[in-house]
């Protein structure tokens, strides 16, 4: 049995008499320490799937198993890094992370330890220098770093990343991807990440789960990315295996699952 298992999940949204089937029979397995990406066109329901794993949305059928136990409410064992960082603007960078640390380790760590743990996690994402700044005083990439620090500080069993770099420029995104890769290398977290970026998926993941277009999106294909770690962005650009993986993803996304708008136009 795998570490995290999304088991035959269906999700139907009901608004009045109108029913929209978003996810249909989705099963994903993630082993401990694995980095798994879920890729698909926007609107295919991948964020809904992540929210179901996080416990923020309830599945219509099926369920989520973490270490063989069903989870159906949100909790710090499945920390989320949200797409739009979701830092609390009235708290400093330090206090944003400290809020999580205080809540999760209230019983197990003393004041001093909680302080040290907060600083340690900020340093891990290289944000220790900005700990007294408020979110609106730092750049988008830095906010996302703090968001990652907050999630890591909860010591989650699974780290859930919801298109965390989607709103960033290409250079900042590359730096953050390198950071996430380095952190994954050191801490060995289990990570489930949503993305629509083919290069990002190939660079970061051990396995890519491709989703078909909605409505009623399902798992289209699963691709194992067998490249050795640590991976280097520059070497990967010319690596034949990497190129092959990218081709597989691109073919799935653009030849077999064209954008919904294009299909509708025909």
């Amino acid at each position, binding site marked *: 049995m795998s570490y995290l298992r999304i088991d035959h999940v269906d999700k139907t949204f009901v608004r009045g008499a109108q029913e929209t089937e978003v996810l249909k029979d989705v099963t994903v397995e993630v082993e401990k320490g694995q980095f798994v990406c879920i890729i698909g066109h926007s609107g295919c329901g991948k964020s809904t799937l992540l929210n179901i794993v996080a416990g923020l949305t309830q599945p219509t059928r099926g369920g989520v198993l973490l270490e063989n136990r069903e989870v159906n409410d*949100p909790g710090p064992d499945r920390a989320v890094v949200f797409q*739009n960082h*979701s830092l*609390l603007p*009235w708290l400093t960078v330090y206090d944003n992370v400290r809020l999580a640390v205080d*809540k999760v380790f209230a019983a197990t760590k003393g004041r001093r330890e909680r302080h040290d743990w907060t600083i340690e996690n900020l340093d891990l994402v290289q944000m220790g220098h900005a700990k007294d700044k408020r979110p609106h005083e730092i750049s988008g990439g830095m906010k996302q770093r703090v968001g990652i620090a907050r999630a890591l500080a909860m010591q989650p069993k699974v780290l859930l990343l919801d298109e965390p770099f989607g709103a960033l420029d290409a250079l900042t995104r590359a730096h953050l991807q390198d950071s996430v890769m380095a952190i994954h290398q050191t801490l060995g977290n289990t990570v489930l990440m949503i993305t629509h970026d083919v290069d990002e998926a190939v660079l970061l993941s051990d396995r890519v789960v491709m989703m078909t277009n909605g409505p009623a999106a399902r798992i289209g294909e699963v691709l194992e990315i067998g490249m050795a770690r640590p991976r280097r962005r520059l070497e990967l650009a010319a690596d034949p295996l990497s190129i092959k993986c990218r081709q597989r993803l691109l073919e799935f996304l653009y030849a077999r699952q064209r954008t919904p708008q294009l299909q509708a136009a025909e």
Partner: protein
Amino acid sequence: MNTMAIKAAKAPGLPKPRANVVASLPVKATPRAGRLLAALADLAARVIPPALVVVLFLLVWEMLCARKGASLPPPSRVLSDTWELIVDPFFDRGGIDKGLFWHLSASLQRVALGYALAAAVGVALGTLVGQSVWALRGLDPLFQILRTVPPLAWLPLSLAAFRDGQPSAIFVIFITAIWPIIINTAVGIRNIPQDYRNVAAVLRLNAVEFFSKIMIPSAAPFIFTGLRIGIGLSWLAIVAAEMLIGGVGIGFFIWDAWNSSHISEIILALTYVGIIGFILDRIVALMASIVTRGTAAN
């Protein structure tokens, strides 16, 4: 990775030193005197226009009311008539024959009590209505109707209920100030971004933690908008209410002055009412800007 972090940290500061150099070049000879001069010029630019307008207003008023048979006294008469009241606001000859300080402080006490009650109950009710759809459906129509009732229309009813002027006046302040506080708080609570609720859910914040750590800070800008409208309305209502209930208070002072045809005293009292209303508004605005520092900036 490291270089990136350092670059990103330095980048926002880059234009600053250059701007400083450009700015400091012309005043390099006497930097301190230059800065003082600039500060003085800035102060003058703020003070001179309103002062000019006040002087002009007083001049026109003086010209209009100085002729014989004018129904209102000119500013010079107001000043000479009320000089005693201005220089000695603290006298107390018993009854309602007191200095203006005592009248104003009696009014302020009523406002403070009524307004504090309205703030506490208003934020609580607003939170309830903002948080629960059923409370919203049940209470909102009632609020929308009651808030249009003019403050003074509540007075006879509250006199009947309390059988005393003092609690009735406080109730009128309460009922006047509470509606904007309720409505704005409810809007603020309803507008808490789903992201913050998600963060709270992942952290498993309990109801008390959610209220104090997410709800109140997030809704603070809205709550303070309501509080600011509320304090203005309270001060508007107290003068009218006191005219009817009598006793010590700036409202009844004005009414009493009218009954004894001391028009100058009315004008002096109105000036004080205006200035204090302005100060009250500024105090709440200042509190708002301190409390909502982080929230509003985002």
